[in-house]
């Protein structure tokens, strides 16, 4: 009969023990897992991106229920353990069950530390520890409200950054003189503080909280010096303390945490403990790396390898605030014996400091450029003598190798097996390489499935790819499928978008700098793509770069073969009036426009307009209520309609009004490529809706929604997305469709190849089956267009970018 193993605590440490155990002795135990949180296990270190809105909860779930089932584990999520009966070797659940064990692992984690000040229990005072905390912060984080974060350490700054990203006004109050003083020295702390303040965070240091005030809920924080900071939300993020409650109640030896020996065994031989709840050699840890090191030893012990011991961890930290790179490891305090090597580049905001003692690295602080963190951490842990490379240590291995431009493959090849590649899932190089060779993995996706490396934030995808290349040699080159967007970079469209999000890159130069563009300022392929991706990612915040736009989008007209332009006013749903037609006729006469043509999308095209005439032409058209038709843009072009039930004897619905409503809702949104739509009033389909990107066909009972048609070089009929009953639903589904295309379509990829690539069923899952997802997409779409539904003609007719339309000089003398 198999032994019974019970795990209390379904968090990162406990689950890691199970993973490690499955590699060693998969059949030895019957495993039962108790978790107080009702969720499957998730990556707690990724809560900050969830708070900041960069990730959804589902993105950070690391082990779903299927994983437990697949291994035959019994998972009791949402079940607390109230007591341990050590004499009978049973745990007692909150609902009174008594579950027997042969070996017990306690992994109960930690409690957030609550500053003992008056008002700490007021509604609106929260901690930052689990997903429930994130939910309550988000509930209080509606735009424009004020938050105070108590604590300027790692946790507090991540919380503050997240709330700032959610639109709150945020003040950090910190007891010490320097933020993150436990990890950073004064110089790096200063750079970090300056950057946070630049982003809009208020930071008050040497601030001692006296009380939190408010009557029925929190209203603010009062400092000892008398200052009062109003707040609708107060986040306590001053640290954690080990949760050894259960161990203490059971009579296990415990101080701050449950005391374990080097075998991770508590004072009871049958009981082991792991993670933040532990006290080992007087130390407790709150970082993920030590937990994983402990988990290995626990698994060894459970698997019968009694020799395996844990000897404590040297830790390093990285701040998970996107766009700010901070690394710290080891000691950096004042030590007379220690020697510093310092590098500063104030203009680029880079600061590096390596602390040596007897020619060995004992500490490192990196700000702004943390690429060398893994290597320095390695040197720190190995304790190797570095006198030979001391002169060039601070410039990194590439410089030491002769100053040549570093070969990215070489850098990866040079990493030791223990070097961590994927920080989110704690996967080291050795494990990935072993998986590649042992299991014959060929692609990044394979590596993801087998090791989880690059499965969370994706920012290590490039590293994983390079590991594949190093390990498989030429064999991988052929298998590599990521096509770079142009010759300036080796990254593909999807990777770039992921990295923009993951690293919070905000400008084109920043993307080029951070992703190692090989050209000074890109080319005519990558610049418009990057401009679009940033515009889509940061609506209302990113400043559109006119010089990275194709001429048509820059001057809001279509360039023709002779350098003149064509002008197409918007006619909503293809409907016009005598007044509009008269205004157009007047403009044609006044500016002597050579050609007038009706377009395929039911609009009127004025051809042969000279560039310098454009602002005046637009001003006159504006006066008659005509606005830009975006006939020149990667944007919604036209919604073509038939006359529908209003006039047609076959019409089943008012397709004209539907088309006008669609166009009024969706115009002005930039998209990866042009978008054409149509609404037909009956299945005879006079508006040709089934060769449009988004086509609506009225039927007796409602509306059919079709997607992915085209009638250009490739003629393709649409596929039916779904059927809906009301006009409101047509609008909602259309917005959701456009937003999904905006977010996931590659630049210059029409909807039909995009749908071919991701599959219609994917669209149906995101838009039709999941109402929450649909509404979220619609909300993001509406938010984005709220900034762009402005007539660009009116802005230019009023003088915006006037230089664009006039010559610099005339030299006719």
């Amino acid at each position, binding site marked *: 009969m198999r032994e019974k193993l019970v795990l209390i605590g379904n968090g990162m440490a406990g689950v890691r023990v199970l993973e490690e155990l499955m590699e060693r002795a998969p059949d030895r135990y019957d495993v039962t897992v108790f978790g107080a949180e009702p969720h499957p296990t998730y990556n707690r270190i990724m809560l900050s991106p969830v708070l900041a809105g960069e990730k959804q909860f589902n993105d950070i779930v690391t082990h779903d229920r299927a994983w437990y089932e697949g291994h035959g584990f019994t998972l009791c999520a949402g079940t607390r353990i109230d007591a341990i009966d050590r004499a009978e070797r049973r745990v007692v659940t909150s609902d009174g069950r008594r579950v027997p064990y042969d070996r017990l692992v306690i992994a109960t984690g930690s409690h957030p530390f609550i500053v003992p000040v008056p008002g700490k229990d007021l509604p609106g005072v929260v901690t930052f520890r689990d997903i429930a905390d994130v939910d309550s912060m988000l509930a209080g984080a509606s735009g424009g409200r004020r938050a105070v974060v108590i604590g300027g350490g790692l946790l507090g700054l991540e919380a503050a950054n997240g709330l700032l990203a959610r639109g709150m006004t945020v003040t950090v109050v910190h007891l010490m003189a320097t933020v993150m003083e436990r990890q950073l020295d004064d110089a790096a702390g200063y750079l970090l503080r300056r950057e946070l303040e630049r982003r809009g965070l208020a930071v008050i240091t040497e601030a001692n909280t006296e009380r939190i005030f408010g009557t029925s809920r929190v209203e603010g924080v009062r400092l000892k010096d008398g200052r009062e900071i109003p707040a609708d939300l107060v986040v306590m993020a001053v640290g954690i303390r080990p949760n050894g409650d259960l161990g203490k109640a059971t009579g296990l030896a415990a101080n701050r945490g449950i005391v374990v020996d080097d075998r991770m065994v508590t004072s009871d031989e049958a009981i082991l403990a792991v993670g933040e709840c532990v006290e080992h050699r007087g130390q407790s840890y709150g970082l993920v790396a030590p937990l994983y090191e402990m988990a290995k030893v626990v698994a060894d012990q459970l698997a019968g390898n009694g020799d395996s011991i844990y000897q404590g961890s040297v830790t390093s930290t990285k701040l998970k605030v996107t766009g700010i790179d901070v690394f710290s490891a080891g000691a950096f305090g004042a030590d007379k014996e220690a020697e510093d090597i310092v590098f500063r580049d104030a203009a680029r905001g880079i600061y590096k400091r390596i602390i040596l003692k007897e020619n060995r690295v004992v500490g490192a602080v990196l700000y702004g450029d943390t690429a060398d963190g893994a290597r320095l951490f390695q040197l720190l842990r190995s304790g190797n003598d570095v006198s030979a490379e001391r002169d060039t240590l601070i410039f990194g291995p590439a410089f030491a190798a002769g100053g040549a431009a570093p070969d990215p493959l070489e850098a990866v090849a040079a990493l030791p097996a223990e070097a961590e590649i994927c920080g989110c899932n704690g996967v080291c190089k050795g494990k990935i390489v072993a998986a590649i060779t042992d299991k014959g993995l060929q692609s990044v996706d394979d590596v993801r499935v087998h090791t989880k490396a690059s499965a969370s934030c994706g920012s290590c995808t490039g590293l994983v790819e390079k590991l594949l290349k190093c390990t498989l040699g030429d064999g991988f080159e052929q298998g590599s499928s990521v096509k770079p967007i142009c010759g300036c970079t080796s990254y593909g469209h999807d990777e770039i978008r992921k990295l923009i999000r993951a690293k919070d890159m905000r400008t084109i130069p920043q993307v080029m700098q951070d992703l190692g563009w090989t*050209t*000074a*300022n*890109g*080319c*005519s392929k990558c*610049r*418009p793509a990057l401009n679009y991706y940033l515009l889509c990612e940061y609506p209302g915040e990113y400043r559109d770069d*006119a*010089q*990275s736009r*194709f*001429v*048509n989008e*820059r*001057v809001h007209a279509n*360039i023709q*073969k*002779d*350098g003149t332009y064509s002008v197409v006013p918007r006619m909503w749903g293809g409907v016009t009036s005598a007044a509009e037609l008269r205004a157009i006729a007047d403009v044609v006469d006044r500016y002597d426009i050579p050609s007038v043509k009706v377009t395929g999308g039911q609009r009127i095209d004025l051809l042969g307009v000279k560039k310098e005439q454009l602002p005046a032409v637009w001003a006159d058209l504006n006066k008659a209520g005509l606005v830009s038709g975006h006939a020149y843009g990667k944007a919604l072009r036209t919604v073509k309609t038939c006359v529908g039930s209003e006039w047609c004897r076959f019409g089943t619905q008012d397709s004209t009004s539907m088309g006008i409503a669609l166009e009024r809702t969706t115009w002005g949104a930039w998209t990866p490529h042009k978008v054409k739509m149509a609404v037909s009033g009956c299945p005879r389909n006079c508006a040709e809706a089934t060769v449009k990107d988004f086509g609506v066909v009225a039927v007796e009972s409602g509306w059919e929604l079709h997607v992915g048609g085209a009638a250009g070089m490739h003629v393709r009929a649409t596929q039916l997305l779904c059927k809906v009953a009301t006009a409101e639903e047509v609008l909602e589904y259309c917005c959701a469709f456009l937003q999904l295309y905006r977010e996931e379509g590659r630049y210059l990829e029409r909807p039909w190849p995009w749908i071919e690539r991701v599959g219609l069923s994917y669209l149906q899952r995101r838009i039709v089956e999941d109402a929450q997802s649909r509404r979220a997409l619609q909300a993001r779409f509406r938010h984005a267009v709220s900034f762009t539904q402005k007539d660009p003609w009116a802005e230019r007719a009023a003088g915006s970018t006037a*230089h664009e339309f006039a*010559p*610099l*000089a*005339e*030299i*006719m*003398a």
Partner: protein
Amino acid sequence: MKIDWIDVGVMDDIPVMGARVVRSRDGDIAVFRTADDQVFALYDRCPHKGGPLSEGIVHGRSVTCPLHNWVISLETGTVEGPDQGCASQIAVSVDQGRVRLGLPRASLAAHG
């Protein structure tokens, strides 16, 4: 051949990584400004089909023609890549932010 240096305005009026047009009797001249504030001038006609180079996307020391994506070197006027051709160059001097174009006196006189 004598060169006349003709003041056409200040560099700051040219967008970075953009261009402005100067009208002349010999046709439009595109005056480009690169990301590192170098100024170049070419006749505003792509050697391919006469497209207005002033409307192209400027990158590095090159411009991509808006009509058919030919890439022209701003430094030499020659076409980069597999295509062949050359746009006519005009000398430029920038002094204290003022841009002067160097035009052959003969051509001015011929039209004067």
